Structure formats: structure tokens, C-alpha cells
């Protein structure tokens, strides 16, 4: 479809066509220009191969880009399969909380807040007042659950990847990546943990380096450097496995 439209551009143009065997390439008129622009824009939307450039003074952006690069190394170079259970858990808790909040909003709209009625107030007749309280309490409990989940279950882990057994018989090995970068600090710690599918052994290794090692002056991530460090870490753990 793209080619058809592109060739259409050649034929048209402003002004009369030239005679003879010459093929004249006319500049595309406005309609075609918009079409081309639209398609170019869409194809370039996913920029997986463009080198990563961020503001080197923005700590959050630096950590995020390093995390993403580590993910890329494990998923593309070693071809592990990403497992989304941990992330899905968090998304589920957040979604449920938002639903409760929306429910509370709708409920409050349908049952307008009872003005101070002399006498009755608390949970006597199951009035709107009472249920609003219940929805609120549920929401704040969900917030508590979310905090516990993020602190104790997720613990800075940003990737859970499965190493499929080539023979297809043993259960998968589980690789987990977690990292930390303190506020206003330049030392980035990457922790790789390996959990053997069969023996249920658990090992981990980590490195701590300054972010200046991986970023150049303009804020572009030097992927080769980073990949080397991550691969070294990965191989340390893989090597231990073989010697055991």
C-alpha cells in the first residue's frame, strides 16, 4: 500500500506534464506530503534502536535508563523470557484501588451527603453515609496492602526473567534483577540473583559503579560498557552453576 501511494506521488504535480520520454519527478503536492509524513511518523514511533539520551543530572531518568538497558541485555542477548507476575500483582492492586475510589465517587453522587440530621448518623439504616465510610476504609486498606507489596514483595526488583531449559524437561531457572541508586548519589548498584529451577539453589551477585562509567558527557548511554558489566555479572553466576 505504501509503494502504491509513493508511486502515485511521482505522477502528479503542479503544472502540466512534460512531453517526451523523460520522466519528470514532480514535488509531491500537499495531500501526498501529508500522507508520507503520516507514515514516516508512524514507522518511527517505536524507537528501539535509537541510542538512549537522557538528562545526566536527573537521577530518576538515569536509574530508569540503566534498568531498561539491563533488561535489554538479559532479554535480547541471553534471550530469556520476561515474567510479568510481580508487575501484574502491583497493577492489579492499583486498579482495584482506583475502582474503589470511582465507586465511592459514584456512590456519593447518587446519595448526596446527608446534611446534619439531628439524631441518626452512624450505620443504623445502611444510609449512604455509612457505606461511604466503608468504601473509604477499604480504599485505605488497599493503600496499606500496596505499600506492603511494594516494600516486601517487590523490593526494587524490576525484572524477573525465565531461562528456559533447552531440553524442555527441567523447570525454568529464574533470574531477577534489582537495582538501587541513592538520591543525589552517583553510585549505581545492580544485583542479579539466580534461582536454579531444579535444585532450588539461590545465588546472587552485584556490582556497584559510578554512573559516570556508563554515560558520556552529553548524557548518552554507552551500551557496550554497560553490556560488558552486566554480562560479566551474569557469567559469574552462570559459571558457579557449572562448577557445582
Amino acid at each position: 500500500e505504501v509503494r502504491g501511494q509513493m508511486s502515485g506521488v511521482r505522477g502528479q504535480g503542479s503544472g502540466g506534464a512534460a512531453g517526451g520520454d523523460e520522466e519528470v519527478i514532480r514535488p509531491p503536492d500537499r495531500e501526498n506530503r501529508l500522507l508520507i509524513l503520516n507514515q514516516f511518523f508512524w514507522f518511527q514511533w517505536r524507537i528501539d534502536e535509537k541510542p538512549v539520551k537522557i538528562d545526566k543530572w536527573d537521577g530518576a531518568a538515569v536509574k530508569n535508563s540503566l534498568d531498561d538497558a539491563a533488561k535489554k541485555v538479559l532479554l535480547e542477548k541471553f534471550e530469556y523470557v520476561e515474567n510479568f507476575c510481580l508487575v501484574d500483582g502491583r497493577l492489579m492492586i492499583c486498579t482495584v484501588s482506583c475502582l474503589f475510589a470511582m465507586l465511592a465517587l459514584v456512590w456519593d453522587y447518587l446519595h448526596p451527603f446527608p446534611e446534619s440530621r439531628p439524631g441518626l448518623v452512624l450505620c443504623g439504616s445502611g444510609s449512604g453515609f455509612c457505606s461511604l465510610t466503608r468504601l473509604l476504609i477499604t480504599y485505605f486498606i488497599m493503600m496499606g496492602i500496596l505499600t506492603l507489596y511494594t516494600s516486601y514483595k517487590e523490593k526494587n526488583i524490576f525484572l524477573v526473567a525465565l531461562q528456559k531449559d533447552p531440553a524442555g524437561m527441567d523447570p525454568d531457572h529464574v533470574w531477577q534483577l534489582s537495582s538501587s541508586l541513592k538520591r543525589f548519589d552517583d553510585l549505581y548498584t545492580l544485583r542479579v540473583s539466580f534461582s536454579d529451577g531444579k535444585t532450588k539453589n539461590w545465588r546472587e551477585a552485584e556490582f556497584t559503579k559510578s554512573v559516570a562509567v556508563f554515560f558520556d558527557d552529553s548524557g548518552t548511554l554507552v551500551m557496550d560498557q554497560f553490556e560488558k558489566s552486566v554480562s560479566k555479572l551474569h557469567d559469574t553466576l552462570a559459571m558457579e552453576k557449572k562448577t557445582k
Partner: protein
Amino acid sequence: MLSLDFLDDVRRMNKRQLYYQVLNFGMIVSSALMIWKGLMVVTGSESPIVVVLSGSMEPAFHRGDLLFLTNRVEDPIRVGEIVVFRIEGREIPIVHRVLKIHEKENGDIKFLTKGDNNAVDDRGLYKQGQHWLEKKDVVGRARGSLVN
């Protein structure tokens, strides 16, 4: 081509991360909403925090001050207290002091208000033919203030 560097972060995200960003925003909005509703439930007032809009209560409250209200049934309104009320048919709440109260045995009250800085009481502000305010007009009683 168009340089969309500022959108690079969004383009690098996959579906899950995008959904998480949307959820994050939703969570912030939800939390703010729920805290407001929580305050409403705890204080019993439909508008637990109001802003003083006019200078009719100077020198006690100036325009722009925040007031924290409660509206609990157990605390009856007494003369001399500062109440925030709405006149029937009008949206804007008014902050004035209670001047007179007529109280029935069952707890129904009719009261008259006046702003400290005003020369006359509020009968001129009330609805046509209305001479007293009732409990249902009250938004809450002032419990604390934040000077702007």
C-alpha cells in the same frame, strides 16, 4: 523529521509501563479524592475546609484565610460561635457569628447571624420573607483557621 525527543521516554515504554503511568496518575487523583471524602465523613460537614471570601469578619478572619469546620450532631450551636452557612438558593457559603438562638425541646433551632465587621445583622441577606436560619442551612462550625 520532527524531533520528538521529549516524547522519547513514552516511546520506549511498552504497554505495561504505559498502563502503569496512567494508573499512577489515577492513584494520585483517587488518593486526593478519598482524603477529601474521608475529611467529610470525619467532620460530618459537606465542605470541611472553606475559604473566607469577604472582610465581614475582620479583625478575626481576613479574606483568604482557611477555616476548618465540623458539623457534628452532638455539639449544639451556641450564641457567639462562628458558623458557616448557605442561604437557600445560593451557592456561596457565608462565615458569620451567631447572635440569637431560639431552641425547641427536640433540638430544632432558629438562629440569627451577623458579621463582626457589619453594621447590621444578616436579615438583609436571607431569602425574601426568611427571618431565621435553621440547622439545615449550616455547613459547619469553625474549629480552626489558617491565616493566609
